């Protein structure tokens, strides 16, 4: 399963990256690289800085400090080149519920200026892959959570990205759907040589799918290596135990990142 061809070429390079909201340092001087063709798991407790890092990599947020390089481009200065390079499945659903599955796909294809003939073919191929082709003309609001997620995966891959970001893609899905999703993702990683960057709270998923794992806590990267390395380093037998050994067993009371920020903005009088 992990036999895919990896090169040493870094497709994502993060150097001394920080993001500050007022007095709160969400991401604190982190550096890491992701090699082309690998499946990379970015793990951490709630509020550790995972989503903030993904937002900076995907041009949605500007870093306070540090350097980013994605597929050779800088997300701050070369936004469009970066945006063409990746596909993304966000933590929250990001489909238009009033549109049909197919319309959501076409909308995406037009935004990424795909030629019409290529577009039609690839939409069919991907909707078949995620088993939604026979429901392509139904409005998304009639879909279950699992179907929406599958559609988002198909959509994220439509424009042939080099890197695929998945921010907690299996949140709230049943085991069957989770299993299916990971099968697609591994298949695509092998078939299209696509680099996968994902976050999850389910350690078994990371253990099974990821070549490399990085653990972030309180905005800092505290460990990095293959799931096996991490277990060895901590003298544990599974990634879950290694994770708990590294990040401690305290429950995190931080508000979710976006709520925390909203509150911060309200307090600073932006409304």
């Amino acid at each position, binding site marked *: 399963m992990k036999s895919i061809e990896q090169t040493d070429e870094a497709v994502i390079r993060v150097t001394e990256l920080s993001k500050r909201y007022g007095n709160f340092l969400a991401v604190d001087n982190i550096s890491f690289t992701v090699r082309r063709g690998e499946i990379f798991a970015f793990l951490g407790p709630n509020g550790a800085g995972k989503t903030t890092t993904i937002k900076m990599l995907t041009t949605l947020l500007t870093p306070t400090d540090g350097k980013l390089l994605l597929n050779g481009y800088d997300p701050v200065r070369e936004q469009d080149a970066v945006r*063409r390079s990746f596909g993304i499945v966000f933590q929250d659903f990001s489909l238009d519920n*009033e*549109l049909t599955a197919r319309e959501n796909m076409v909308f995406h294809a*037009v*935004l990424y200026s795909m030629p019409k003939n290529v577009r039609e073919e690839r939409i069919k191929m991907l909707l078949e892959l995620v088993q939604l082709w026979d429901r392509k003309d139904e409005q998304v609001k009639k879909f279950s959570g699992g179907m929406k997620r599958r559609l988002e995966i198909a959509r994220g891959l439509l424009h042939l990205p080099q890197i695929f970001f998945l921010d907690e893609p299996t949140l709230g899905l049943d085991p069957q759907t989770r299993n299916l999703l990971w099968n697609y993702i591994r298949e695509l990683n092998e078939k299209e040589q696509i680099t996968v960057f994902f976050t999850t709270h389910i350690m078994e998923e990371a253990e099974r799918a990821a070549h490399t794992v990085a653990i972030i806590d309180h905005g800092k990267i505290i460990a990095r290596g293959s799931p096996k390395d991490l277990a060895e380093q901590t003298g544990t037998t599974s990634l879950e135990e290694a994770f708990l050994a590294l990040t401690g067993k305290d429950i995190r009371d931080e508000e979710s990142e976006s709520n925390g920020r909203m509150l911060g903005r309200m307090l600073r009088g932006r409304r």
Partner: protein
Amino acid sequence: MNVIYILWLRQLKRYFRSKPRILGALGQPLLFLFALGFGFGPVYQRAGEGNYMQFLVPGIIAMSVLFTSMFNGIEIIWDRQFGFLKETLVAPVSRVKIMLGRTFGGASVAVFQGIIILVISLLIGFRFSSMPALLAALFFMFMIAVLFTAVGTAIASLLEDMQGFQLIMNFLIMPLFFLSGALFPLNDLPAAVDAIVRLNPLSYGVDGLRGALIGQAQLGIWADLGVLTFSSFVLVIIGGYLFSKIQI
């Protein structure tokens, strides 16, 4: 161009697929039209001002366009809350194009809503002067719609959720409407009210519509055209700027 088109198309599809919203948005303007039109008609006539329904219809069309376009602009907050905004913001297209597509889409929907009011008005006896007048009226509706969709977009770019909506409704949309001359003629107004009306860009939209449909422009159709064009231009730039600054 394609990008602007697909965003425009999306707004139209969303509009035509939600029938309750079309009907809901008709309720208030129709209530104003019937209650005020028939209620004040006799007094207006006695005051020697002529037919109040004729006078009122352009005002109510403007109202309907104002409400719908403002609402369409503010819809960005929905997109933000339901996540779809992210899909457009990570796409390799300029935010300005996204904003323009949305604005034209929202404006088209608002014009359509205005046309529905016009058709209903024709059924209860409203008459406009000529066919070219109708085209001019459509143009004014479109200008009002672009202007206020841009205003809605600008406001929505600054808000995180819908909690501020009531505030906007009561302190911006309603005053804009009531102080625009949509309901009353502009002659012999108290100086303060007159000044406010003249500062309100919607007044020029209402006046332009009235000028086009029934030949009664009080501010002058060229002034209407100039003010509307200028303020739409400025607001689209401000809206585009604020929209491009959104961080999620």
